[in-house]
């Protein structure tokens, strides 16, 4: 779908009210529906109604955020980025709706202890275990409960958005929370004499 409209024209028409706004909204709705279709076509739980809802949600956000569009990209690219986020917000909510934060945290590492790398010699094995024990100690004792819960849930693959929903917070705040946790963990490891190279050697993948 080709939309021949400049950035200024989009903003002006969407802000105008009346027929010009209606036409711009119709154009944008059609454009966003088409833009979302391909990347989401193979996603489980995504159908036409889902895309309609995500597009509608995005249109509302675009309209309420017009003053935040700074013109550093095409208007349509900016609008798609908002639509993509709206779609994922709903998709993540649906996918994780039956999963509690407690279950995710309690099952964070699975049923078994970390498997020690069988290619390591006895001395390296001892060093690896010491580093892992130190890591657990810092996570358990050095982080706040909120930081620990958010970090463990993130490591278990739960989206930040869903962690936030369960902690009465939001994605932005959860990112800050886990960022603080990472900074603390990094500093505490370094204070204990471990470098990131040591961590890499132990379980850097």
């Amino acid at each position, binding site marked *: 779908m080709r939309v021949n409209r400049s950035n200024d024209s989009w903003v002006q028409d969407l802000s105008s009210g009346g027929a010009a706004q209606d036409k711009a909204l119709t154009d944008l709705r059609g454009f966003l529906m088409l833009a979302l279709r391909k990347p989401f076509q193979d996603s489980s739980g995504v159908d036409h109604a889902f895309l309609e809802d995500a597009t509608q949600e995005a249109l509302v956000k675009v309209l309420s955020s017009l003053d935040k569009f700074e013109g*550093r990209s095409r208007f349509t690219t900016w609008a798609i980025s908002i639509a993509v986020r709206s779609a994922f917000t709903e998709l993540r909510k649906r996918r994780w709706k039956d999963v509690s934060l407690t279950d995710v945290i309690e099952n964070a590492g699975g049923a078994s202890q970390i498997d020690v790398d069988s290619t390591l010699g006895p001395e390296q094995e001892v060093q690896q275990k010491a580093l892992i024990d130190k890591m657990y100690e810092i996570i358990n004792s050095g982080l706040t409960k909120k930081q620990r819960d958010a970090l463990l849930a993130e*490591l278990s*693959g739960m989206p*930040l958005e869903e962690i936030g929903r369960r902690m009465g917070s939001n*994605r932005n705040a959860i990112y800050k929370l886990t960022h603080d946790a990472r*900074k603390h963990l990094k500093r505490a490891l370094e204070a204990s004499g471990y470098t990131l190279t040591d961590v890499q050697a132990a379980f850097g993948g």
Partner: protein
Amino acid sequence: MTLSRRQLETLHKMLSLTKSQELTCDECQRNMAEFAETALAGDSIPENLQAIELHLASCGDCEEEFRTLLKALESDEH
């Protein structure tokens, strides 16, 4: 509490990327469109957008949305 080997590897990656100052998800979102157009054009990432690259490497939610935005733009004829 125990972590799987995969989680420990992920944690190592996260720690190696951790900086004292990082963009938040909202800040990343505000710059994502410009970053995506730069990436699709194959241009080098200007200094003011490099923090986006770091955030995307550290945040699964934003990275997933960025990949999807690129797919949408690649299929877009506008």
